[in-house]
């Protein structure tokens, strides 16, 4: 691959940014106000999903304003030292960088994931940086709620939205013309759709598919879609926000995970994100239906049933949501952790049940349900009988303790 198309076709001026006209206006106003001195909000916080143009906007802005650009990644230790440095030396007169205005635009990426966040030192360094009267600062983040309010309070908040499909198709067409590639309109549409508003990934995808070719056909794209992986966290977060059944349904295409596992993830996290009990009940009914279809798939080896399971766990869940969402960190399905944490206790329980089942002509399930609770009472109240039973059924010390503590 020669040059990345995302770099090659990056907007040179901030006005050329696609699909973010509102954001662009606000950024320009803010930049203009720096000419008159320090504005009341000395920093910008650009937030929104990946690939919507936040970094490109910051870079184009520096170019357009004639500011020097200092780019750092807040999540890495090296940058963190630089932040402190930049903040520390800012009071010194002049600038080591060239440029007539003498200003540097400090761009800090991944501010929702700051290095040194445990001791909060990371955020203190950023606050110092913002307080520096000389330097305009741009913070970039995906999730604004991960950033402390003290920092948000000194920022002008600017929201970057997912880029509309038509706008993405427009950009792709322009690139195709420049690269002399003849593309089927449907192919571009599918790429745009798959990207889910992420312009960068759409351009990257198209480059991977079409570079060096003269034609880009629909069939190339369909195959490619299945290969592209995304992670479960992205899928969950997009799932509860999906606006159409189609959008929700297509999320699974790019996920390489068995449907049972996907369902477990959705199950675990639903009550954490959904606020309205009506939404929760409806969404749960949808995944309960998905579960039924999965069961049918398995029992009858009818793999065609899988598609209905997927429908219900994606579109079914997405369309259940009418009310608000809570912002949360998605969590690993708890059953897995709980199973490993309680392994020892369950093993003891099951060995007790097995011994009872063998001596009392019944199944371990019945032993667990109809004997263990009552044996528990006996073991708590009547040590003598307990001892005799333990002797007769050959209970180990661990098993006796288990019963006595039930």
């Amino acid at each position, binding site marked *: 691959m020669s040059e990345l198309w995302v770099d090659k076709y990056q907007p040179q001026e901030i006005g050329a940014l696609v699909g973010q006209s509102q954001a662009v206006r606000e950024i320009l106003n803010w930049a203009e106000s720096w000419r008159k001195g320090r504005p009341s909000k000395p920093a910008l916080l650009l937030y929104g999903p990946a690939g919507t143009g936040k970094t490109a906007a910051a870079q184009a802005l520096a170019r357009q304003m004639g500011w020097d650009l200092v780019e750092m990644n807040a999540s890495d230790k090296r940058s963190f030292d630089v932040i402190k440095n930049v903040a520390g030396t800012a009071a010194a007169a002049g600038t080591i960088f060239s440029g007539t205005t003498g200003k540097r635009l400090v761009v800090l990426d991944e501010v929702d994931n700051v290095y040194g966040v445990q001791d909060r030192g990371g955020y203190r360094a950023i606050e110092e940086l913002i307080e520096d009267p000389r330097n305009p600062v741009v913070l970039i983040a995906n999730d604004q709620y991960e950033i402390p309010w003290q920092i948000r309070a000194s920022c002008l908040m600017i929201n970057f939205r997912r880029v509309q499909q038509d706008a993405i198709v427009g950009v792709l067409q322009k690139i195709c013309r420049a690269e002399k590639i003849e593309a089927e309109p449907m192919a571009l549409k599918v790429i745009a759709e798959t990207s889910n508003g992420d312009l960068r990934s759409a351009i990257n995808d198209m480059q991977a598919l079409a570079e060096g070719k003269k034609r880009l056909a629909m069939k190339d794209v369909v195959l490619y879609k299945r290969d592209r992986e995304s992670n479960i966290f992205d899928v969950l977060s997009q799932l509860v926000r999906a606006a159409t059944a189609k959008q929700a349904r297509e999320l699974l295409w790019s996920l390489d995970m068995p449907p049972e596992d996907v*369902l477990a993830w959705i*199950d675990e996290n639903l*009550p*954490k994100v959904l606020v309205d*009990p*009506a939404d*929760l*009940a409806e*969404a*749960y*009914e949808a*995944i*309960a239906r998905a*579960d*039924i279809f*999965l*069961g049918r798939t*398995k*029992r009858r080896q009818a793999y065609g049933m899988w598609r209905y399971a997927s429908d219900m766990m994606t579109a079914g869940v997405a369309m259940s949501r009418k009310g608000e969402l809570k912002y949360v960190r998605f969590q690993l399905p*708890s*059953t897995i952790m*709980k*199973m490993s944490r*309680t392994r020892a*206790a*369950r093993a003891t*329980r*099951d060995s007790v*049940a097995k011994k*009872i*089942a*063998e*001596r*009392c*002509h*019944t*199944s*371990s*399930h*019945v032993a*667990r*349900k*109809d*004997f263990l*609770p*009552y*044996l*528990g*009472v*006996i073991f*708590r*109240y*009547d040590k003598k*009988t307990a001892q*005799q*039973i333990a002797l*007769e*059924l050959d209970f180990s010390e661990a098993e006796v303790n288990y019963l006595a503590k039930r």
Partner: protein
Amino acid sequence: MSLVEAEEIWVEKYRPKKLSDIVGQDEVVSRLQNFVDKKSLPHLLFAGPPGSGKTTAALCIARELFGGEWRHDILELNASDERGIDTIRTKVKDYARTRPISDVPYKIVYLDESDALTSDAQNALRRTMEMYTNTARFILACNYSSRIIEPIQSRCSIFRFRRLVDKDMATMLKRIARAEKLTLEEDAVKAIIYMSEGDMRRAINVLQAAATVKRKVDMKSVYDVSASARSEDVREMLEAALAGKFEDARSKLISMLIDQGLSGEDILQQVHREILGLEIPEPTKVKLMDKVGEVDFRLTEGANERIQLEALLAHFSLLGDRMRTT
């Protein structure tokens, strides 16, 4: 299967040793007695609720047919504990290969909870039954005969065990109290019967636990025992859900499934019992019972217990929310 009965556990200690000692199943018993007397036994299918005497009847038949060495000539299997039809087949094969010890020309294979087998497994079972029909008689036990495939039903004599009525339960409980020299108050008998819902095994377990607390068993000791044995988890779970604390309700559910090893059906049964006592409008109770029935059906079809029960809890949460806002 062990060759010694547990005598410290009353369920075993007082399990009837002769068919004629079985209470509450007179018609079944007299027909079975007939087979035993003629020493000719067809394949049998026992259908009936838990604790109604199916296993006891099978053991009595073996005792009476085979005499002193009866233990060697009956193979007890439990479909829910064996790992699939292949293990069952192997065990039956190994067992039926050797000659019976008694002078009766066949052995007995008792397969409990045979409705836990899928219909594919039941078909395999049918072939096994045919293969060893000269050397083994099968007694299959299940809760509902309708869950057993037709070809097996048609090869068996079917016996329906009734849910035990109060009178028969009382007879048995008093028999045990006399033998153990307990004072058993009439109220206590009623309480035990009420709580065990026709399940003799459960009734005897309650009695034994109550007797360890106090030798004079009265109504209060029965309720105390069952309160401490039967946890309040299910009710607390439902109340949390109704109060809008869905995640609390859910962690209770998961703990019951994982820590206590209860099945989804066990929990549903308790949910069903609790509904009538909840402080919710009467018509709502009916809707909920319907919902519980639907979930129960889904579980019998093999759905995931956790997800289905969570969906039910989400429904409770929604109802609770509506009650608060209107």
